[in-house]
């Protein structure tokens, strides 16, 4: 599903160029769930942004479902995101002036779904929030907001789902709920899942963990985090 070879990211700062990612190569298979873990500032979000086509690599190649992301411009990547990718974020990222239902409808409408409202209602039902459909985000709790975000992520039946610390802003109980929901839906629809997390529990539920350390990637099958990482989480 994802193939990368020697991707790097260099950004310009006021103090000159800064290499955030060292050359990284790895693959993710279709239907697989992968956790990216690592210390704060190690480059997890940066990598996720590149994989999801939100950002452009400096060098290297990324193929997402066989499409060459690294050759596409922003418009082409946007189209691809709409067709194949779903997102969940730490800060939920709901549009504040739209209701829960309308937030869920949003990606469906953007990609020209024939019946966005009906699909959205179904998706809300799946996350158990159909009774809050007409509430605005600020009328929902954090956990509820994240469930709306999950409904939104699955409505277009994406081939691959990216999540950046989906439980990061939630308490343990709510975090568990979200976690469960996420994997449940993932199994149901056979979606490939790539998530960034500090949560060892969440990471351990994934098929595979990738460890980031100062812009480099090490694969580790044992869910063993070093002291530094434990400290951060």
């Amino acid at each position: 599903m994802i193939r990368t070879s020697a991707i790097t990211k260099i950004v310009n700062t006021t103090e000159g160029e800064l290499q955030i990612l060292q050359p990284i190569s790895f693959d993710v298979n279709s239907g697989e769930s992968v956790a990216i873990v690592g210390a704060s500032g190690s480059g997890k979000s940066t990598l996720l942004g590149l994989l999801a086509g939100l950002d452009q690599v400096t060098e290297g190649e990324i193929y997402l479902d066989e499409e060459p992301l690294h050759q596409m411009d922003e418009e082409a990547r946007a189209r691809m995101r709409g067709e194949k990718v779903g997102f969940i974020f730490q800060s939920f990222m709901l549009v504040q002036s739209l209701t829960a239902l309308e937030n869920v409808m949003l990606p469906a409408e953007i990609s020209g779904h024939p019946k966005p409202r009906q699909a959205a209602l179904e998706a809300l039902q799946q996350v158990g929030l159909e009774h809050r459909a007409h509430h605005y985000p600020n009328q929902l709790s954090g956990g509820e907001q994240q469930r709306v975000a999950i409904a939104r992520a699955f409505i277009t039946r994406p081939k691959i789902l990216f999540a950046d610390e989906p439980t990061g802003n939630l308490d343990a109980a709510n975090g568990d709920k979200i976690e469960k929901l996420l994997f449940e839906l993932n199994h149901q629809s056979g979606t490939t899942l790539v998530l960034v997390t500090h949560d060892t529990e969440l990471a351990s539920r994934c098929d595979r963990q990738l460890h980031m350390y100062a812009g480099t990637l090490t694969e580790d099958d044992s869910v063993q985090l070093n002291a530094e990482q434990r400290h951060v989480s």
Partner: protein
Amino acid sequence: MSASPNNAAWTLSWRLFRHEARRGELTVILLAIVLSVAAVLSLSLFSERLQSALTDRTAEFLAADRLLGSDKPVPDEWLDKAREQGLNLAQRVQMRSMVFANDELMLADVRAVDNAYPLKGTIKLADEPFGLGKPVNGLPGAGEVWLDSRLFQVLGIEKGDKVEIGEREFLVSAVISELPDGGFNVFGGDPLVLMPLKDLAATGISGPGSRTDYDYMFSGEDAALDAYYEWLEPKLDRELHYWRSVKDDDSPLGRSVRRAEQYFLLASLLAIVLASVSIAVAAQRYSHRHYDPVAIMKTLGASGAMVRKIYLLQVIFIATLGIVIGSLLGFSAQYVVAELIAEKVPVALDNWHWRPFFIAIFTGVVCAMLFSLYPLMKLFSVPPLRVLRRDLGANVGSRIIQFIAAGSAIFVLMWAYSGDLKISLILLVTGLVLAMALMAVTMGLIWLGRKLGQGRMGAWQLAWARIQRRAMDNSVQLISFAITIMLLLVVLVMRNDMVRQWQEQLPKGTPNYFMINITDQQRPVVESHFSERGLEMDKFYPVVRGRFVAINEETIRTDVTKEDDDSGRRGLGREANLTWSSTLQQENRVVAGNWHGDTQSSDKPYQVSVESKVAERLEIKLGDVLRFNIGSEVVEAEVGSLREVNWQTMQPNFFFVLEPAAMQAFSPTYITSFHLPTEQKAQLGELMSPFSTVTLFDVDARINQLRSIVSQVSLAVEFILVLVLCAGALVLVAQVQSSMDERQQELAILRTLGAKGMMIRMSVIAEFVIIGIVAGGMAAMANELALYLLQSQVFNMQTTVHWQYWLLAPITGALVVGVLGAISCWRLLSLNTSQLLRRMV
């Protein structure tokens, strides 16, 4: 539901618009557009209506729209051309001549008019001399004349008697109370006689040798009048002809109307500027609040084109709604005001003007588009990556470019709207000066803040620290607050100055009757007679009638009807009223030489001060020696000064004012004036009956006319002031609101760090108060500059320094900005910390 992304843009845009509108997020930006449209529409509708009403009123004083004056009859071809152009034409021949009756005679201002006279305004007649005038249609019939009240008094005649003018006898058929073109020169004028033009030839008083003015009066469409003048102008001889229109009317009325027009223009410009600023501020805020939705939509696969479409459509929705509401509001506001003053001004409410609607809609569209363009461009450039990296914002150009763009947009808008480069430039320049001064002040403040910011962290220190941390943001804020306050000051102070100067021209109790020919013996009797009746007399001016006979030994022509040969210098053509005084009269200004004062030196010849226009006409220079024959005596005096006289004031004015010593030998008669309320006009007969030799001048009607117009214009100006104040208030609200957003994050952090609510509140209020004080103070200074330029360059007014506002502006600034800041800060802090944090997301 939507099946194509194209429809999705519509649906999304409409949905966002609806929700945002319902949640009140669009209120400020919508209000800004509504206000700019409403202001422009009501102002231009109103001023168009009022202007045409006022121009009509002022045209009455000319009795026409345009007037061609000539020393000789003009070729018939000229008049035919005017008729061809569809203009109305009236003729008036005017000369000075004696009127005889009962062995008495008096010099009169004889006006022979044709049937079309007057083209504008109405003639008023009285039932008896000095009676109350009533408007009439019609003119004296063949063989009839209408006379001024004074002629009845002096000649001792009544209606139905006969008078002789030149070689013909006329029947006196009415008492003139008022002619529209009677003129404001109360005192210098001779009594009026109105006669049919057809009868003029038979009198033999006009024609070669007499000083006769041939006036041709025109009325019609402005375009036709202008076209006619264009045709006529090359044919005119400056020596013989002159062309007058209401616009170059230099009477107090003409000036008031012109100033009011300029004020309307200025006020509408400022309303546009203020509304534009609030649109810009609100659009900026709107754009900022939509960074996240845009990043989200882009992340979810929306193309750039789709995002652009969604937001451009929203701008169109907002603009359309704003323009519709604004038009309705503007129209009704204007209608209500026009209705309210309809009693006083005959504003044509049924007259439909399309132009203001076009201007207003154009303004709404331009404002909405131009001032939201930059914020929108920023919004469009928000990268989807913002969903991961929250600090990523828009990335377009710099703020400087935004200011240059907004500044030139406002300038172009002002210029296009006013067509007046001068006003537009003055406003632009003072705005720029203010902006630059404020930049410097902000830097100074930052420096000061660094000094004060050291030590314990109290509310004030916190405020200072914040001000210096966001130096750039704050200077922007400071500039917009200061410019807003400045513009409000300009409109307010301008209005005050203008209305005050108008009222000063005609203070309450302005004399409306003049008496001349009061003898030395009569003077105390008159004084006691009037004071018994509770009437106050003005100053008594001594007058001696004298004939001006020679300049530097060179004899001048004195005869009224002498052949127009070129021998000898031009004279005054009649006896002059000579007065003496050691003090310069009000509204008189020495333009050359020195006022003689009361310094009497025996070795110097007597001094005389001459009115400057007469001096020019008679070619009198400083140092010339003038000779007057007074009775059998001769008085010589050297011209010590030339005076400019404001003939428009309601006071006696004199061509020649001598030094008192020169005139001690003569027994004068006196001129004085008094004020009698219009309602007490009936008492006039009884009041004057003991003094049959005293001549009375009645200017009551004239003064009332002037006063009513001035009050109408003032009312209109008031209405405009209120509109502009609303626009200003809106800008302030928009600014505080947007600067509150910027503070939100910081407040949330301070809150989480455990800062007490009271301290945060106080520090925010302190910050706004500081900004208010500085902005108000700077605005007062810039206001002074703008007013000086406007009043001296555009309005031709006396300029003054307005010290009171130097104190008032900072205080009000601190108060208003502080209160607005406190209100929005209170709202924000009433949320708890987690709500606050959530709002930031």
